C-alpha cells in the first residue's frame, strides 16, 4: 500500500505538451505538499534549457534548478520529486530518477536552517513518462534511507486540487546584529557570521509561541472545523519570541565591525484542505519565516560576491555600507486559485525581470498585472548613514527617558573581584 498522489489536472496537460514539443529526455520538478494521508501535486516545471544545450542529462543542472525553485515556493509548497519524459529503458530510468531525487533532496535540505521534525514526510516521488505511449510510472523513495528501494505509488489527476487550500500568513520584524571577525571583513566572513546569527534567530523562531487569529490553539486543533467545507480560509498568525537558553554565551569580544539585518518580511504558508491541524500551520509558517530571510540574505551575499569578483566592490574602506535586500512578490499559480509562488525583486530590477524568472524557473506565463506587489514595499536606505546600533522599530515609539544616573555612576569606582561566569572583559582595542 504505497503513497497516493492527487495531481492537479493541468499537470497532465503540461506533461503532455512536453512530450510533443521537446526532444527527450526532458526532466523537471513536481511541486506540492505532502501529508500523512496523501500527497498533493500542484504544478510541474521542466528543467530550463542550458545555454550550452546538450541533450544529455545534467544532474547538477537539475539539482541547481530545484534549489532555485525551492526559493520561490512559499511555506507549504515544496519540491516533492522529479519527473522525466523519456523512452529509455524503464529500469535505467528508475536508477536515474533515484539519483536525481536524492541529489535534489540533499541540496535543498542543506540550505535549510530549520530543524527537521518527526512528522516530516521523507518520501519523494519520481514519475517516468513515456512520450510515445504516454504511460506513466510513479514510484517513491524514502530519502532519509540511503538504501531505500522504489515503492509503487498512485498517481491520480483531479480538478481543483488546491482550490480550497487555506493560507496562514504574517508580517514579521527582523532585527539581527552579529559581529564581524577581527580581520579583513570579506564577504565570505560576512556569510559565515550571518549564518551563525541566523541559526540563533532560527532557534528563537522555532521555539516561539504561535497564535492563530489571536489565539493559542492546542496542537491538534483542526483549523477548518466549524467552517463550511471547501471554502477558502485565510488565517493571521502572530509570533512571540524570547532569547533562549541555547543562545551564544555572554561575550565581549574584539571584532572587525558588525552586520545587521533590519526590516520586516511577509511570510505565508499554504495548508491542504484535508483537516489541517494547528501544529501543521505553525510548522509550515515558521519554516517560511526562516527561509525567506535566509534566502534573501543568501541572495544578497551572492550578489556581493559577484561584484567583488568583478572588481566592482568599492576598494576604500567605507565605514558603513547599506544594502537593500530584495522584496518578496507573489504570483498565483492559477488565476483563480489561492496558491501563489513568489520571487524576490532587487531594487534595481523591474517587474519584467520577475516575470522572466517565473517563466524560466517555473515555466509560468505571468503578466505583470498578475503580480501581487502589495505585501512588501522595497527597502529604503536612509540618507544619513546610521551607526549599526540596535534600534527598535517601535510601532508606538515613546520619547526616550532622560537618563539621570550617569553622573552618579561615573563618580564611583568600586574595585571588583572577577568570577568568570558573571564578568565580561573588554581588552583595549
Amino acid at each position, binding site marked *: 500500500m504505497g503513497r497516493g498522489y492527487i495531481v492537479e489536472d493541468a499537470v497532465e496537460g503540461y506533461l503532455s505538451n512536453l512530450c510533443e514539443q521537446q526532444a527527450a529526455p526532458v526532466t523537471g520538478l513536481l511541486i506540492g505538499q505532502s501529508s500523512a494521508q496523501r500527497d498533493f501535486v500542484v504544478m510541474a516545471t521542466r528543467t530550463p534549457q542550458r545555454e550550452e544545450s546538450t541533450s544529455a542529462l545534467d544532474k547538477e543542472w537539475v539539482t541547481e534548478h530545484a534549489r532555485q525553485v525551492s526559493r520561490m515556493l512559499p511555506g507549504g509548497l515544496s519540491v516533492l520529486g522529479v519527473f522525466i519524459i523519456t523512452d529509455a529503458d524503464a529500469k535505467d530510468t528508475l536508477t536515474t530518477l533515484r539519483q536525481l531525487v536524492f541529489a535534489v533532496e540533499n541540496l535543498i535540505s542543506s540550505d535549510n536552517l530549520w530543524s527537521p521534525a518527526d512528522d516530516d514526510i521523507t518520501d519523494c516521488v519520481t514519475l517516468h513518462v513515456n512520450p510515445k505511449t504516454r504511460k506513466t510510472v510513479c514510484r517513491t523513495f524514502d530519502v532519509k534511507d540511503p538504501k531505500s528501494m522504489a515503492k509503487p505509488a498512485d498517481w491520480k489527476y483531479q480538478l481543483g486540487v488546491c482550490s480550497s487550500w487555506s493560507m496562514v500568513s504574517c508580517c514579521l520584524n527582523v532585527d539581527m546584529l552579529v559581529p564581524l571577525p577581527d580581520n579583513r571583513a570579506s564577504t565570505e566572513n560576512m556569510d559565515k557570521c550571518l549564518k551563525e546569527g541566523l541559526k540563533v534567530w532560527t532557534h528563537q523562531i522555532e521555539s516561539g509561541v504561535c497564535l492563530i487569529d489571536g489565539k493559542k490553539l492546542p496542537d491538534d486543533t483542526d483549523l477548518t472545523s466549524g467552517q463550511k467545507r471547501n471554502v477558502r480560509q485565510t488565517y493571521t498568525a502572530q509570533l512571540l519570541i*524570547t532569547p533562549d537558553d541555547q543562545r551564544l554565551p*555572554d561575550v565581549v569580544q574584539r571584532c572587525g565591525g*558588525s552586520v545587521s539585518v533590519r526590516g520586516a518580511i*511577509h511570510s505565508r504558508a499554504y495548508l491542504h484542505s484535508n483537516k489541517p491541524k494547528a501544529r501543521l500551520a505553525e510548522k509550515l509558517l515558521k519554516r517560511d519565516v526562516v527561509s525567506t530571510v535566509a534566502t534573501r540574505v543568501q541572495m544578497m551575499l551572492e550578489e556581493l560576491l559577484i561584484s567583488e569578483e568583478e572588481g566592482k566592490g568599492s576598494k576604500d574602506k*567605507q565605514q558603513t555600507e547599506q*544594502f537593500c535586500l530584495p522584496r518578496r512578490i507573489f504570483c498565483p499559480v492559477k488565476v483563480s486559485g489561492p496558491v501563489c509562488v513568489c520571487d524576490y525583486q532587487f531594487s534595481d530590477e523591474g517587474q519584467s525581470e520577475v516575470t522572466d524568472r517565473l517563466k524560466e524557473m517555473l515555466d509560468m506565463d505571468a503578466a505583470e498585472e498578475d503580480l501581487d506587489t502589495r505585501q512588501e*514595499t522595497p527597502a529604503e536606505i536612509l540618507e544619513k548613514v546610521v551607526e549599526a546600533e540596535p534600534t*527598535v522599530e*517601535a510601532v508606538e515609539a515613546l520619547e526616550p527617558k532622560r537618563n539621570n544616573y550617569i553622573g552618579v555612576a561615573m563618580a564611583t569606582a568600586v574595585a571588583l573581584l572577577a568570577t568568570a561566569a558573571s564578568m565580561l572583559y573588554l581588552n583595549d582595542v
Partner: protein
Amino acid sequence: MVVADSPCSDTGTILRVRGPLEFTCRLDSTDALHTHKVISRTFQTLHSQVKSESCVLTVCDSPVIIWPNRGVHATPEEISPDTLCEDLHQWIQTDEQESAGKRSAKKKSKKSSAVNVINLRLMMEVTKTGPVSAPILSKTVQKSHFLSTTLPIDCVIRTTCNDTIKDAFERLLAALTHQLCEMEKVTLQHMKGTSLVKPEPLHFLLPEPKGLVTVVYPAGVPDSQLETQRKELHQQFELPDDWPYFRRANAYHFPNEPYKDGYLRNPHLFLTHPTLENGKVYLVQGIYSYHHYMQDHMDDNGWGCAYRSLQTICSWFQQQGYTERPVPTHKEIQQALVDVGDKQASFVGSRQWIGSIEVQAVLNQLLEVTSKIMFVSQGSELASKGRELANHFLTEGTPIMIGGGVLAHTILGVAWSETTGQIRYLILDPHYTGAEDLQVITDKGWCGWKGPEFWDQTAYYNLCLPQRPKII
C-alpha cells in the same frame, strides 16, 4: 535601588515576571565616556521595547497572553482588563489536570504556604500588520568590541483580591521599567574600564507590611563588598542593623521552586501549632534544612545525632547569609575539634559522640558564631525554662541543640503560657533514618510538638543556644 510594593492586608497573589532581554551593542572604543553612552543608549532601546505594543506577558502553564501596552488586551477572549487578577488562577494548569481551559472549581493551593504566585514570561511579539518595508543589510567595518548578553529580568508585584488585571499590569510595567533603570545604574556603577558586570535581581521578604522588595545586585561581586549598599537599604526600609535582610543567601525562595540540594526546608511550617491558654508560640526565624541520620550516604545511626543537630544549625547560618561555608560533614566537624585542641587527632573518622560544648566549639571555630550554654540538672527543670527559651527565639531566632541522657535533639520553638506555665517544645529529631518525605516526617512526629514528658526527667541536659551575629 529597590521597589517596595504597597502594603496589603490579606495574602493576595504575587505576580512574577521573568524573561531574558537581549542586550547587544558595538563599542567603538573602550573609553569610559563612550562606553557609558553606548550602554545607556542600549538601555533606552530596551525601555522602548518594554513600553512598546510588542511587549507581551504570557502566563506560564496557561493559554493566557496579555499585551500590557495595547490596552491590556488579552487572549483568550474571556479575559478583559477588568478581570480580577485572582481569576487568572483558574486558567493555570496544575499537574493534576491536563485541559487547557478553565478549571470548573477554584482549586485551593497546597496548605504549605498562603502565598500564591502566578509566574509570567516576558516575550516580544515580532509580528505586525503589513504591508512592510523589506529589510536592509548594514555592514560596518571598524575595529571595535562587540558586547552580547542578556539581562535576567525578574520583577514581582503583589496584588490584592480587588485588583483587576489592568491595575496589576500597570504596576508590573512600572516595575519592569524601574528594574531596567536599576540595572543600568548597577551596570554603569560597577563598570571599570576593562570589565563589565551583569546586573542580577533578587527578591527579599521584609517584615510586614513591607513585603517583597527587589534589589539589583552586580553579579559576581561578593556580599562582603556590598555592605554600603546594604546599609543604604536598611536605612531606606528602616530595618534594624542586626539582621542580614539583604544578604544574597536570604533571597526569597518562591514556593514550589525546588531546592537543588534535596534537603527539606522548615518542615515545622507544615504543623499545626498548639494553642495554650494565654500561651504564645515562639519559633525559629528564617530557614534551616533538616539534617538527620543516614543522609549523604553517611551511616551515623546510633552515634551521629548531635552532629546532625549541629548540621541543622550550620544550615541556618548559611541560609541566612551569615556564612558562605557549606554545611560541614562529620569529618570536618571532628577536624574542627582537633584544630581547637579539644580532641586528639585520632578523633577524626571515629564514631564518638559529641555534646553541646563541642557544638559550641565547632560553631565558633568554623562559623565564628558564639553560643550560650544553658545547663539543667534534671530534665524536669526544662518545664520551667519557658521564658528563657521564648526570649531566645525572640532575640536570636536560631535553632537550639539540646543534649542529655543519651540523646541529642534540636529545639525549633516553644509554646509557652506565662500565666499557666504550660509548655510545649517544637522538636526536630535527628534520629530519623528515612527519606526526605515531608508527610512521614510530620505525621510520625520526627518534626513535632512535644510536651515536658518528652525529656528524661532525671537526666541532666546541656543546651547550646547559638547567638546571632549582629551584622548586616
